[in-house]
């Protein structure tokens, strides 16, 4: 019992230091304000009232929600059949294909965004390919620096996040359930829609949530491939900590993001299973 309490204390300290204190500091700063480049250390809700009254912030928030939703929907639509495909393979091939989707999760986040910029750019890979094959006469500048470039790049980042929970949900479905469905005369597609699909739903919800959250909070993708029209909510936070030096406003913006995403997690946790991502 002594060991248990010691461990519990250490873990509690971890949570306090790495979660509770930083969020508390953020909350505190969000109620301060800035005057003449100096932080005013007195309680005020002026940051929040500014955010909820100035249409700039709310419209950007709404736009970010829409973009993240588009990415999450596309990501789920692509990841689901991909998970079915990988799950149908056998042996080493299955392992390789599975790890093949996972690996980009942890490799070269920054370079992949950067690479999409040069792939989509006016003198980039796709344009030179199109000109070379004669499909285009002139390289097009409409591929880069807009919201669709942001969606394409984020999708490339989000698919592995969505794939893992969907795959693990599908993989866990016992084979004898499908056998039973077939024995009872269900066709392949009927068995899929009545057995596989409902059982995989928690994975889909979790995967959807992951894609939504990662895209929602991303600011490097929009600042590298988004141009001025592709700016997102995260860029606004980044600006407060960079050029604007308005930390209290940045804290309030970040706090709103945190609360919004916690609500998203709470809503999806009822149906999805967050922990499934770490179980094969």
């Amino acid at each position: 019992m002594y060991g248990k309490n010691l461990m519990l204390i250490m873990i509690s300290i971890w949570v306090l230091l790495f979660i509770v204190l930083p969020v508390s500091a953020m909350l505190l700063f969000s109620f301060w304000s800035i005057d003449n480049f100096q932080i005013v250390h007195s309680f005020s809700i002026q940051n929040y009232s500014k955010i909820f009254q100035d249409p700039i912030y709310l419209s950007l928030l709404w736009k970010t929600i829409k973009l993240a939703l588009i990415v999450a929907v596309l990501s789920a639509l692509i990841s689901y059949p991909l998970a079915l495909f990988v799950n149908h393979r056998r042996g080493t091939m299955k392992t390789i294909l599975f790890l093949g989707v996972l690996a980009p999760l942890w490799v070269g986040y920054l370079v992949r965004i950067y690479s999409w910029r040069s792939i989509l750019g006016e003198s980039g890979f796709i344009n030179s390919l199109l000109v070379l094959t004669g499909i285009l006469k002139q390289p097009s500048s409409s591929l880069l620096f807009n919201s669709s470039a942001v969606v394409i790049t984020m999708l490339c980042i989000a698919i592995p996040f969505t794939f893992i929970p969907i795959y693990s949900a599908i993989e866990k479905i016992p084979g004898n359930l499908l056998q039973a469905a077939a024995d009872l005369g269900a066709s392949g597609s009927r068995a899929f829609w009545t057995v596989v699909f409902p059982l995989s739903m928690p994975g889909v919800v979790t995967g959807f949530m992951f894609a939504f959250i990662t895209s929602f909070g991303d600011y490097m993708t929009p600042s590298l491939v988004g141009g001025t029209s592709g700016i997102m909510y995260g860029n606004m936070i980044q600006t407060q900590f960079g050029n604007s030096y308005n930390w209290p406003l940045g804290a309030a913006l970040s706090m709103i993001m945190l609360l919004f995403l916690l609500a998203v997690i709470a809503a999806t946790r009822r149906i999805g299973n967050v922990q499934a991502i770490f179980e094969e």
Partner: protein
Amino acid sequence: MKYLKYVGALLFAFIVYTFLYLPILVTILFSFNESKVQVLPIKKLTFDWYRGLFSNTELWVAAKNSLLVSLPATLCAIVFGTLAAYLFQRYRIRGGSFLQFLILLPYILPGIIIGTSLNLLFKFLQVDASLMTVIIGHITFITPVVMFLVMDRLKRFDRNLEFASMDLGASPMRTFLLITLPNIRSAVLAGALLGLTISFDEVIVSFFLIGTDNTLPMLIWSMIRHGYSPQINAVYTLIVLFSLGLIAIAGSRLFAQRNSKAITEE
């Protein structure tokens, strides 16, 4: 009909994998391109960009800084992650699932929230940004990775071995070191390799916590903002190959143990 379906599935998978790996492939391809612009067709291949890396001291310093961040952060995360996994898996704790959720948060939430909140905490405490503050930021998101990999392994590990050890008079600590740890070793190792890879690649949290010393991704971020350089492709080709190697080792570790276990169970 069935044949058509199969070809369709193959084609679909091929397109998705190409989409996922296109940016990495393009990076590797153009790291050997002599021209300073990234245009097809490639006229001449060269190793110049790689050769240039050796003389770029800024890059080497940044790479060293990255290791100075990743290694201690991963080490701390292994200790805390394994501890947390053991605690949550072996004991019933009131509010345990909530604690677990809090530890998982930095992995689920976007880096910008972890980055800004820690940044503000350090401002509040008047701690100057340095590699130390970056290490703390990295611990937050590596720990949950280790925790869940180890928890998953503990779940499938036969607890009777632990009971037997304690029945024979070994202390809980001795039991953990001699019985539990060797059995979860590969999960801990996989967590460490993954943690290292993630940390070495991380840029969003670091962005808010970095002082005057750059980590490698931070240096590349500032290089990117100044324009295109084929040298970035060369650096990243090396990083990607290195990371993929680590992931392959971590993956084979996890799968090897899993498969051998499946065999003994049968």
